[in-house]
């Protein structure tokens, strides 16, 4: 049996007293892309936070390539090859573009098949970042900030990439650019969780789909099957 790149098993998570994730289980296969869908407040970002160690699961287990990481800190999980492109981008605003990338640099794991990401390969992928390399990140446009957030995650040479609503708040043309990038990353063999509100964006690129509803897993399926099932989508994602 192939080990999964990321697995959540019966995870319960709380913010203070509020019970946000209930018995959540899903897995991301190696070199696959999992689309994670759900309405506002369904618990998508919370799943990403649990995967990254920003919030620790009160019950259940999280593992990366078969190794448990449930109680590890974010920096230790990052060291195991998980990177996050967070919702809202959260670039370091008072650092320059170049510094944002440099602080996140991590050597690839021994035996990694891929050419490592470096500041040069990130700049090659996002030429616009290169042009602005010495500008304060706070002064970038929304699209550029999203590219920087993706580039920063790649600098960690991750094996697992968690992307939380990378299209949020971007013009359609920029969204298309970002989706092209995501497709390339998938082709490079990276295992990716893509969180989105808009299922159509995800259906084009993902291999598997998980839909969350009020903190629990409601649907585990594939894009092909879900495209045929408007009723199910409407039930869990609302009208669109």
């Amino acid at each position, binding site marked *: 049996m192939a080990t999964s790149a990321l697995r959540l098993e019966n995870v319960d998570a709380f913010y203070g007293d509020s019970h946000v994730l209930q018995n959540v289980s899903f897995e991301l296969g190696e070199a696959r892309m999992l689309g994670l869908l759900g309405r506002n407040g369904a618990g998508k970002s919370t799943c990403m936070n649990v995967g990254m160690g920003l919030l620790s699961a009160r019950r259940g287990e999280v593992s990366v390539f078969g190794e448990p990481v449930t109680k590890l800190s974010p*920096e230790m999980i990052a060291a195991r090859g998980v990177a996050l492109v967070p919702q809202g981008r959260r670039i*370091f605003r008072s650092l320059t573009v170049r510094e944002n990338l440099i602080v996140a640099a991590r050597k690839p794991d021994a035996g990694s098949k891929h050419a490592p990401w470096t500041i040069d390969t990130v700049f090659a992928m996002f030429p616009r970042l290169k042009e602005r390399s010495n500008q304060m990140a706070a002064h970038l446009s929304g699209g550029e900030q999203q590219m920087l957030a993706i580039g920063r995650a790649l600098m960690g040479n991750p094996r697992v990439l968690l992307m939380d609503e990378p299209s949020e708040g971007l013009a359609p043309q920029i969204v298309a650019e970002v989706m092209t990038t995501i497709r390339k990353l998938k082709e490079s063999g990276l295992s990716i969780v893509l969180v989105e509100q808009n299922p159509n964006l995800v259906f084009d690129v993902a291999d598997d789909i998980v839909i969350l509803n009020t903190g629990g897993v409601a649907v585990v399926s594939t894009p092909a099957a879900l495209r045929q099932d408007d009723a199910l989508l409407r039930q869990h994602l609302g009208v669109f």
Partner: protein
Amino acid sequence: MNFWIVLTVNSITFGGLLFLLASGFSLIFGLMRIPNLTHGSLFMLGAYVGGSIVIGLFGFKLNFWLAAVLASLTVAALGALIERFLLRQLPGDQLAQVLVTLGISFMAADFCLMVWGGDPMSVATPEGLGGFARAGGAVFPLYRLAIIAIAVVVAVALWLLLDRTRLGAMIRAGVDDPDMARVVGIRVSQLFTIVFALGAGLAAFAGIIGGPILSVYPGLDQDMLPLALLVVIIGGAGSLLGSFVGSILVGFIYNFGQALLPELAYFVLFLPMLLVLLLRPQGLFGRHVP
């Protein structure tokens, strides 16, 4: 005329000393989100330890500058120990951490009283700097000019460290968004130790450098701590430029206030703090609301 020039030089000198004290305080505040209430004690401890080495109280004597470096390194090591073995045990609990620093400051005050007694210790001006420089009819004490030069050199060095190195960028990333810094793999807790030790060392250095001007006495810690707090609130936590501008500003307000309105010195001193808190709570150059 002369009076104003002297007052101005004294203000800048005092501002320079404050910068040495407050730059570390501000970095710690920006990164760890706590006002380090031992900062005044570290200043006083640096002054006592350095002064004792200069006069040979510990059985050996060094010249002023070597004593200053040795005292700073000693107190920096103490700072690292405080962070690693006390504050580290209370992760995320900022109130508890502040209370720990408050407790240590009281203990340090008692410790100093026991070891060095209640009489002020005077520290001689380092050799060769006891004289005066004359320019256009005004006289300037050389040592005060030296303090200003030292503060500028330290400011430039800190700026290079924070602005031109990867470590500095990591520290700034931690000030910006500590959780995100950890997500990209930065070991923020290690930065805490480094920054705390650096801040402690700088505070001690300020203490001994300030010795020949302020002398060293019980209560020096509690005289200095509010001023550091003032600088950080005015300048903005975590901002080096803020510490610099804030220190010079407080240096001027403190000296001019005492000279011109001695009954209202503290009123004049803390009024700008209230204004900044009301009008620009993140400070002149800060990004966070402390």
